[in-house]
């Protein structure tokens, strides 16, 4: 942990959830949601985190916020190890890191007005009161392109896209440096998705925000991220610059994942090579041995069953975890 330009760094993070059974609720196994991952995010950078459902993307985001008690590993934020902070210290630390949720319906309290929802974080962290508070709430409305006069309305009076804007304004209220966006546009309609993505990019510029952008839509991730990490069953299999990952994917899983996404242009799409993955993602309770992708990999050899591949730098900060690259 050294460089000044790094805002967040994760070292060998493990997050296991116990599986209990029987009358005594004894622990019988672990769900290995995150199984030893390391990465960093630079200040002002957007790191995309992609993978299929259940691969540990969301858990990783929540571990950074210390919403779970991490099994092992370190999470550094501005050089401080968050896992070592006391609850009270962590609470004030969270002012610097905020979360935007996927579901704009479930993540807003239906009994609070939009103004109260957006202003609440400022009250919790004692950042503003009285006239100043009101002015700041109005300013936050304008930032996310909503009209301040809507602040007396309740969530159900807003559309999905507008609610997502309220969620974004709430995250911005405490002037954080890091925002973890957990599938922020996947619940929205196509034409509304673009509106919210462009808003997030504008805010990033304006406030020099750092994003961890978690999503399963690979096209959206390419568009918004500077670098992208691909996760499979709790591990990172490839991490590199966004355009490099999409133009030159090296890991067989990344290649298969990208080829599965149909491109909205039939002429271009017909010319692409397709790799069809067979089977489903295995259970993270009993992940396959060695490289946990080997049962579905078309390039697997015997040694893949035994040895876990480490992330290796293939040049130009293009990291891949595969024996066969």
């Amino acid at each position, binding site marked *: 942990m050294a460089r000044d330009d790094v805002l967040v760094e994760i070292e060998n993070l493990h997050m296991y959830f116990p599986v209990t059974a029987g009358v005594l609720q004894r622990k019988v196994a672990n769900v290995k949601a995150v199984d030893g991952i390391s990465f960093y995010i630079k200040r002002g950078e957007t790191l995309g985190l992609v993978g*299929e*459902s259940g691969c540990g993307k969301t858990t990783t985001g929540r571990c950074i916020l210390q919403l779970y008690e991490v099994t092992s590993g370190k999470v550094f934020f501005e050089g401080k190890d968050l896992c070592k902070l006391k609850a009270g210290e962590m609470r004030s630390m969270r002012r610097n890191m905020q979360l935007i949720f996927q579901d704009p319906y479930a993540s807003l309290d239906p009994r609070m007005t939009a103004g109260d929802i957006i202003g609440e974080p400022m009250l919790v962290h004692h950042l503003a009161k009285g006239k100043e508070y009101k002015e700041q709430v109005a300013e936050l409305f304008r930032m996310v392109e909503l009209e301040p006069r809507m602040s007396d309305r309740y969530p159900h009076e807003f*559309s999905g*896209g507008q609610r997502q804007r309220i969620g974004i304004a709430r995250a911005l209220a405490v002037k954080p440096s890091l925002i973890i966006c957990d599938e922020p546009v996947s619940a929205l*309609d*196509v*034409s*509304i*998705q*673009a*509106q919210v*993505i*462009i808003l997030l990019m504008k805010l990033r510029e304006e406030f020099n925000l750092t994003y961890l952008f978690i999503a*399963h839509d*690979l*096209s*959206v991730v*390419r*568009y*918004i991220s500077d670098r992208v990490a691909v996760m499979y069953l709790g591990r990172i299999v490839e991490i590199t610059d*966004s*355009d490099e990952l*999409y133009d030159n994917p090296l890991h067989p899983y990344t290649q*298969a*994942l*990208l*080829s*599965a*996404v*149909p*491109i*909205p*242009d*039939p*002429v*271009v*799409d017909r010319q*692409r090579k*397709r790799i*069809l*993955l*067979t089977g*489903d*993602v295995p259970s993270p309770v009993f992940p396959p041995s060695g490289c946990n992708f080997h049962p579905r990999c078309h390039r697997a050899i015997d040694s893949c069953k035994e040895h876990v591949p480490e992330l290796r730098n293939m040049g130009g900060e293009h990291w891949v975890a595969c024996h066969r690259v």
Partner: protein
Amino acid sequence: MSYYINKGESVGLVGESACGKSVSALSILRLIPYPPGIIVGGEVIFNGQDLLQISEKEMRHTRGNRIAMIFQEPTTSLNPVLSIKRQLSESLELHRGMDKNTAAEESTKLLKLVGIPDAERRLENYPYQFSGGMQQRIMIAMALSCNPELLIADEPTTSVDVTVQAQLLEIMANLRSQFGTAVIIITHNLGVVARYVDRVNVMYAGQLVETATTDALYGNPMHPYTIGLLASVPRLDLSRKRKVSIIKGLPPNLARLPKGCAFQPRCEYAISRCNEEKPELKKVGKDHYSACFRSGELQK
């Protein structure tokens, strides 16, 4: 709105939520709950017969047997307390008059067809024992059990991951070429449409705004809504330097549609005429129709 599907053809029905995609498909099967819904007028001609005129009994014979449907949520479409065997054989016994044993054999065959490994054993399982992707395969197997002439798939892959989406659509494409089933895919995913269908219908606020062959629609979109939609999706194959543009505003409330063209408040090409008159679908090319007064000028 009006549209047609040829025998053995695959047609995409594209649009945003609440634009009427699903309702238009449910009307084909007369599955709109009444009240409150009512089909006010029009015809649904299937193989020369108007489905809106036949009796409920005849309709029941058509549903599942000649026209089948797959829904978005396989979890809620399968009965959780019945085994897969029971659910698959039901339509075989009902529509194809098979006895229990033949139906069970046929069910095994169907599961194999949609790529479920270990079919004999899996047949005895219950829906919760399958993943979302597997459940959707079972739905496809069920829909195909009576060799329907038309398969309607309503957002069949919205709740699954991209890799599973590719598997499911590949299965459907193979079955189509094998049995010559016509397919309507209802989706909001412009990529799925580009890869898997022959012809596309674009819907906006309950109306058809553009229809064309897939290549023509993507290569030369003529309706401002289609143009806007295509420009607003980030593309996997294009660098971050290509900027996406946005369609301003929100889709209208269907109970309070604006006067004239429904898209006009969000349209950057709108002229005063769009405010007053509703544009009809007009021919703009070979098999290419668009409902916009200015389509001719928008041509590439």
